[in-house]
């Protein structure tokens, strides 16, 4: 009796939870409403089955509870019933699978007019590349990657010279036009994940993956990594701004092309030294490992770092001054703070950038 009641309560509770819980799909910002529709169909079919079978289970538990004076029925098989149930289940499965495959066919079929953007992942930051005026992305190779050429652009490829490179915490897309997002990883698996667009795909080193969507709702969206990629996985973040065509064009024009980055030092940062330092830190992806609020991370927090005495892996101690900070940026593995792995890459920044970054660090 108690079991039957609890089973019924769990069924009712589950259904109520579904309708009353504040946690459900985020407002959609792409053309993939079809995905939400398929999810709804699946909920209806599965919800129906869940309720019916479990209530029947509860009924049996109550109705056929043990009695000394009664015997169970002896019925080894019932072919008719078994066939009916099999057929009924098959219909339910087809009702969910058919629309699912129909939508999947759209998902794998990228519209020809789709524009291109490339998202590049590394542990633990994002950067982005647009094809520039010619609409063609230049070729890339891991061998070309260095501090001066973080995208690994082929310097001899004319198609790549006008590619727009965004090493920042933010990238933009215009509303209303389908976009094919090409995905490339420099090191390990990542996954480009913005819940509001529903679509997602892994980044796989050694190959280019992709998905497509049409932005439909203006706004700023968090970009997360959805494939475990090491210590800083949870902190591999960026932002996607969806805006109208004109704003997008204006923003894109402020970003450097590959040719720009190889010749002149373009001023992509502005403001006070501390503010410039903050922007550099964001664009270099420093925050993937270093928190600024004292919370633990892959590397030491920057909060009140300057002036702190750190214990080093070799047992000695060092007072964190400007010289030590510079060394830790340009040759990070020379001295390692105790308790942290020697995994930080060396950064080649010019003196002005270093000065801004140090100013920022001193301000925290």
């Amino acid at each position, binding site marked *: 009796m108690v079991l039957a009641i609890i089973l019924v309560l769990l069924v009712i509770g*589950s259904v109520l939870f579904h309708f009353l819980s504040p946690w459900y799909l985020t407002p959609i910002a792409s053309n993939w409403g079809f*995905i939400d529709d398929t999810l709804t169909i699946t909920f209806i079919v599965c919800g129906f089955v869940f309720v019916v079978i479990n209530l029947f289970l509860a009924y049996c538990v109550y109705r056929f509870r043990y009695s000394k004076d009664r*015997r169970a029925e002896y019925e080894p098989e019932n072919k008719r019933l078994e066939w009916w149930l099999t057929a009924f289940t098959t219909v339910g499965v087809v009702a969910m699978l058919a629309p699912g495959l129909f939508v999947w066919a759209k998902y794998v079929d990228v519209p020809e007019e789709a524009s291109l953007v490339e998202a590049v992942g590394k542990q633990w930051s994002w950067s982005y590349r647009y094809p520039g005026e010619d609409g063609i992305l230049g070729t890339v190779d891991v061998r070309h990657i260095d501090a001066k050429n973080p995208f690994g652009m082929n310097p001899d490829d004319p198609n790549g010279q006008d590619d727009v490179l965004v090493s920042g915490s933010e990238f933009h897309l215009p509303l209303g036009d389908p976009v094919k997002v090409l995905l490339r990883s420099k090191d390990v698996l990542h996954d480009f994940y913005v819940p509001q667009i529903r679509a997602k795909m892994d980044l796989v080193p050694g190959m280019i993956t992709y998905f497509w969507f049409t932005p439909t709702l203006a706004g700023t969206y968090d970009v997360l990594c959805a494939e475990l990629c090491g210590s800083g996985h949870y902190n591999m973040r960026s932002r996607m701004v969806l805006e109208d065509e004109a704003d997008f064009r204006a923003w894109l024009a402020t970003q450097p092309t590959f040719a720009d980055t190889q010749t002149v030092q373009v001023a992509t940062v502005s403001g006070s030294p501390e503010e410039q330092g903050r922007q550099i830190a964001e664009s270099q992806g420093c925050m993937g490992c270093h928190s600024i609020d004292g919370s633990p991370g892959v590397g030491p927090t920057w909060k009140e770092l300057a002036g702190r005495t750190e214990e080093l892996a070799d047992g000695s101690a060092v007072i964190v001054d400007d010289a030590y900070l510079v060394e830790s940026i340009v040759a990070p593995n020379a001295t390692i703070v105790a308790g942290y792995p020697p995994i930080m890459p060396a950064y080649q920044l010019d003196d002005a950038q270093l000065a801004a970054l140090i100013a920022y660090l001193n301000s925290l």
Partner: protein
Amino acid sequence: MAITDVAHDAVDYVRPAEVAEEELYHPKTWLGKYVFSQDAKIIALQYSMTAMAVGLIALVLSVLMRLQLGFPGVFSFITPDAYIQFVTMHGMIMVIYLLTALFLGGFGNYLIPLMVGARDMVFPYVNMISYWIYLFAVILLLASFFVPGGPTGAGWTLYPPQTILPGTPGADWGILLMLVSLAFFVIGFTMGGLNYVVTVLQARTRGMTLMRMPLTVWGIFTATVLALFAFPALFVAAIMMTLDSVIGTSFFMPAIVSMGQTLDYSGGSPVLFQHLFWFFGHPEVYIVALPAFGIISELISVHARKNIFGYRLMVWAIVVIGGLSFIVWAHHMYVSGMNPYFGFFFATTTLIIAVPTAIKVYNWVLTLWRGNIKLTVPMLFAIGFVFTFINGGLTGIFLGNVIVDVPLSDTYFVVAHFHMVMAVSPVLAVFGAVYHWYPKITGRMLHEGMGKFHFWVTFVGLYCIYYPMHYLGIMGVPRRYYANEGSTGLPDWIPESAQVLNAGISIAAIVVASVQLVFLYNLAVSTTRGKRAGDNPWGATTLEWQTSTTPPTHGNFGKELPSVYRWAYDYSVPGAKDDFIPQNVPAGQETGDAR
């Protein structure tokens, strides 16, 4: 063929499979009897206790994870690295070293010989070696907690390239110990597994046709066959990754710039590893599920005092599910970057599996229909299993249907789904089985009051942990995150209430974990203080309850092996004296004294 043919045909045509009692080697020393034992029953207990001990470690790890998720930042010793190490070790231990070892090494060893009427496994010595290799694998795995860098934090899926690169904890020593441990586990399992298969095929007693075998044996047998085909894929993947890590081959490693360093790898494929891993990994789900299916069929039939409904269809469902489980693996990889056209094939095969699986659920419930249901502790766990399995099975349809999987993959929906179907359900089956067979193993009953308390807290608690978790996933909260708050703050679509839910889930998890101590206490104290059970306390038909001594001695059945005259589910047969007829009662003697 009518069912009566299956149930009551003659026994003569089945080749006798007899081992004279005298031919068995009986150990003389205490060491030979209880430590280096070749008796499947002792080996079963060794497997079970080791698995449960290592499972307790994994349980503690899950509580530590929940502490971080429920109360982020409160426990400073849980760093981002420690967190993903807990995630990894919890998953790997629970799936391989607990559930696989317990269902096959534990229940398989204890129940197969007894239920098919054999004296022991056919290769007792190999069986013993199998356990010691398993123990060695467990020790290697646990050793990784004590090496520099700690255990691997690559997730239980061990996806390269990150597994063996800096940036993932344990990339030097932890991962090597994990890979070598897995290789040894596979070797040990293969020895045990061949034993289970050959025993079922060759050592059944007179009259025990395949279609008279209890569904428990069918479940364990089919799961073992799956494992023998699936584990080699894991084995080669582990060896290739070891080579990539130690001598710098590039099986899974493409050209990479890791932490600013250009590495020497080139040309390998990370996706190849994923195919190998899931070629093992998906059948692994059924390696855990099929024994549970069998056990649940047994418990429901015995305690509802009714024949299992649709026995033949149940057997075929087990076999078909086992077969299909080898052609669905890439449904774990819909967003992995594999050829997107695979999605059509793997979504279709995956949803086809829903049909035989649904049949199993229908038949369990229809077995209860017009039964005479005794709500014993094993039965409570069995019904709890059916409830959670329905839930977990249905959410599998969401994830199997490729396009629905896209937004849900890598979120807490996945975590909630696989825990419901592959953790909660099998664990409820394990508990039910322990309460059911403990009287045979020890001769005493487990305490019923403690058992019921254990059931209610565990069943309701686990459901409260995992059901709401699905909705975090539907909202989009990603899994394997140390914290939802990152360098860009808390994503604006995650409301504060989500943190409240996480705290609630963590408290429920701590309660459920603590209550397992009651179960352990019950297990320990009942060995001496439990009510005496007798040979057949549940009134069950299968052969393990027909032994002349309880617990059964070495050789299982005394001088004379039983002969089998009927299927395993003759409960409440009209006209019979008792409401059960053991399998070794000849036709025509049902009205006599069945005991």
